[in-house]
């Protein structure tokens, strides 16, 4: 029953169990180490079970006929992997990792093939044994690799060409897929070679396009957006901000149940707050708490609401980016985007320090509208 292989794995799993018990008792209870050791134990026990189940791979038979041993791709692949591995040591880490993956995969395939060819004297049966074991992994890996390359290439194309060209090429590609698909459906007797030929041509075309696209790089607006902090960079002046107002109206969501609605109407700025029946010039805001104001512009020109966050002690705006505005604009403030008449924008602010800690009060103002300001009192 127990032979060398199973004895080895049973011994190892016993050792792992001993370690697990010792670890749990002496080192730490209920910790990740315990989980890891249990997994090691489970894995080794599983291996032992497999070895036992396949009867230690020993079928008590003489070497099989040479006729049963088929051609093999794996020695060659292993060598390719080793070459990649060595090249990687010299050139770049990525080739090294690739080499390891190829070598491991080839060895696994090789092992299973060798094992299956000794399974019985029936080559068909041996092949089915190999397939049962390896098809579930060969299929997804090959499919993932193939599709991955095609999709990656396609994405490079789409990132490189302009927006409208992207739409056009997408429509063309989709129509082609539809057409060819319809052709296959209408002519089921089509030769498999022709079908796969068309698919291969299509795939090669996309990959070629992808390589070209990767060479071109990102189109300009994407490249700009990819710059660090592009959308955090706020310029709160009267003019349009180069970064911040690109897609006005879309970057901040509107909220219900805001702390106050700040309206600019007839050149006057006032705050409407639930519970107060008249527009207010003073807002009492809870300290250290995200407070949302909604700015409504009724002025014909585009306007933005600017919240001054006091002197150095004031908290940064809630939307990330500690102190970045201060560095860029020289002032500690944050703002909504420029919005046209009738539009609304929300602004969420967290006042970490009270008003008494400030030399200047917190205010809400609109650039270009003089003499109008709402004080925010943080008790």
């Amino acid at each position, binding site marked *: 029953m127990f032979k060398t292989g199973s004895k080895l794995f049973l011994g190892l799993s016993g050792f792992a169990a001993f370690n697990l018990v010792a670890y749990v008792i002496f080192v730490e209870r209920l910790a990740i180490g315990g989980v890891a050791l249990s997994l090691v134990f489970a894995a080794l026990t599983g291996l032992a079970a497999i070895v036992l189940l396949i*009867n230690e791979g020993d079928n008590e038979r003489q070497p099989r006929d040479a006729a049963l041993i088929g051609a093999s791709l794996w020695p060659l692949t292993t060598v390719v992997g080793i070459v990649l591995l060595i090249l990687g040591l010299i050139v770049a880490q990525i080739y090294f990792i690739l080499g390891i993956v190829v070598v491991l995969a080839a060895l696994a395939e090789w092992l299973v093939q060798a094992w299956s060819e000794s399974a019985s004297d029936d080559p068909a049966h041996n092949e089915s044994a190999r397939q049962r074991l390896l098809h579930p992994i060969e299929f997804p890996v090959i499919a993932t690799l193939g599709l991955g390359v095609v999709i990656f290439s396609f994405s490079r194309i789409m990132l490189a060409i302009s927006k409208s060209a992207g739409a056009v090429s997408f429509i063309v590609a989709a129509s082609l897929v539809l057409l060819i698909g319809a052709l296959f459906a209408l002519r089921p007797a089509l030769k498999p070679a022709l079908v796969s030929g068309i698919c291969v041509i299509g795939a090669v075309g996309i990959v070629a396009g992808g390589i070209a696209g990767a060479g071109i790089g990102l189109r300009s607006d994407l490249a700009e957006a990819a710059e660090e902090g592009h959308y955090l960079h706020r310029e709160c002046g009267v003019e349009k901000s180069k970064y911040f107002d690109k897609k006005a109206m879309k970057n901040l969501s509107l909220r219900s149940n805001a702390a106050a609605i700040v309206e600019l109407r007839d050149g006057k700025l006032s705050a409407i707050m639930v519970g107060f029946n008249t527009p207010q010039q003073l807002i009492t805001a809870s300290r250290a708490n995200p407070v949302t104001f909604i700015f409504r512009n009724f002025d014909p020109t585009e306007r933005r609401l600017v919240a001054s966050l006091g002197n150095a002690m004031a908290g940064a705006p809630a939307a990330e980016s500690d102190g970045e505005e201060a560095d860029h604009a020289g002032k500690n403030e944050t703002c909504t985007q420029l919005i046209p008449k009738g539009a609304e924008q929300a602004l969420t602010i967290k006042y970490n320090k009270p008003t008494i800690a400030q030399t200047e009060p917190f205010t809400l103002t609109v650039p270009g509208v003089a003499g109008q300001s709402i004080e925010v009192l943080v008790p």
Partner: protein
Amino acid sequence: MAIIERPTPVLDIPALPAAPPAITPSRTFGALKRPVASTGWKSWLFTVDHKKIGLMYGATALFFFIVGGLEAVLIRLQLAAPEGKVLNADLYNQMFTMHATTMVFLFVMPMAAGFANYFIPLQIGARDVAFPRINAFGFWCFLGGGIVINLAWFLGGAADGGWFMYAPNSGPVFSPSNGIDFWALGLQIAGIASLTGAINLIVTVLNMRAPGMSLMKMPVFTWLVTVVQFLLLFAIPVITVALFLLTFQRSFGAQFFDVAAGADPLLWQHLFWIFGHPEVYVLILPSFGIVSEVLPVFSRKPLFGYPFVVFSGAAIGFVGWGVWAHHMFASGLGPVSVAVFSVATMAIAVPTGVKIINWTLTMWGGKLVFSTAMKFAVGLILLFTIGGLSGVTHSVAPSDTQQTDTYYIVAHFHYVLFGGSVFGLFAGFYYWWPKMFGKLLNERLGSLNFWFMVIGMNLTFGPMHILGLQGQPRRMYQWTEARAGEGFFNIAFWNLVASIGSLVLTLGILFFLINIVVTARSKVRAPLDPWNARSLEWMTSNPPKEHNFDSIPKVEHLDEFFHRKYEEDPVTHTMRGVATAEQVLAELERNADPHIHMPSPSYWPLVLAVGLPVIALGVIYSTMVAIVGGFIVLYAIYGWALEPATAVASDFDTPSTNGHAVSTTHG
């Protein structure tokens, strides 16, 4: 008659000697062979038989029922006296979170799934469900999910955010242990069970009914469970999304509920309750189905207003989607939303009330036999009515703002879920036990079980109405003497009563467990038709054969079995017996199908389900482990996809003498 199509040895062996004998693959093929056993532990582990899977669902759910019950007893012990010291705040929060999670997701849902799995194919005259391997996969997912959720107890503390897991309290800072991660991922895995089960049962019910069984001749249990499967089909994706948001928030730093980043925590509540309210009907409708089977049988009368029960069930299934925000009346939704949901909630009371009326009228004019199953069914009518009416009181939104999150709500939903769902399931146990195991549960112990449960349940949950109206909020690990009041309605007294009641209730459930043991040890076999039942599942042996029916019955009536046993006297309109159950069964066996095709067992559902908890652990602890889990899942999916539905010839054991002889000659 072959149960499973397999090559008979008679055919195999003579074919060999002519050619040079090939080595039989029996040994080296080893573990790679497909499992084919129909007895022994492997037959359970790799089974795709809906009955075995149903029993495994039931057994696992019963185990979790005990776990959840013990959690509940600990909660009640903690609250028996002011400033309770049995549990600390942290443990208490874990306890009530896990009590609810366990009872909802790991007991009532899978128990109902167990009954559905076992009885729907039998009730519609099918030999199995439409997708047997998916069915097995569902069970293993449920088990894996249950284990993952509870694993947290041993790895730093269970989930502590309440089963509703409101954001942002479920965030990584506010709940620093890994409990909620385990909870979210475990529920995600258990959700796969519900979703696949839903698809499976819907397809089964729509496609695999016996000839002649139109939808309106389908047993009510099957009907209501089908409604439940549609609810699950649409509700589980919602909670899946919500749980993904939660997991990403906790494990990968996403900000879906982070106010400072512009999010709104109420998003979680909407997602949760859009799932959560249909979920309530998922919990109660199977039990409604069970009592709708039990009451007619023990009243010797068809269900009163069958179409009304069916359509009100379907109506609940629809309106149930439009009432989720009544869990959020105090959340500050604004008066318009509150008013709309208030009215929708009142509306859903109507189809629910219809069922109560129909059950009462089913008993009216009948010939009532009070077996334990019937007692539980009648218990459900009365207790659910109390729960339903207290439900109506908080459909009145302003009134609800006083009652929500107090013990009044706890009382309400325990009357609905314990007095309703659990009593229905117990009725199902007593009614179907002989069908599943061939033995009748002891009726004397059953009676004790029932009365202790009824008294215990009312003692436990009845006083909670008072506690809630006296202003005791839920989810408090301690209550204080200072806010207890004096006199008849004082909180201290009624808390004590509730705690004592929970012990009585525990005793009642203990009687049930004793009953199971006593019954298992008893040698007395149940008669073929112990209850004089009415539907197809009783038209087969106890327990049913692997292929359920020797020949598929042709259905002409609702309550087909009853109508094969009885005929109406044209003058008096009373029923007179024309055949015994044994005769009906013998008739079916005489016409047995010569060729019965059953699916083969498979490793893959189990392997696939094992991969999921590994991914879950990986998400919590280390990405590498998750990758290993992903690998297992991928492998199992393809292994499954490439495997034929029925095992090939070489998977079956060839007689050992043959294999041995061949190998020695060759060696």
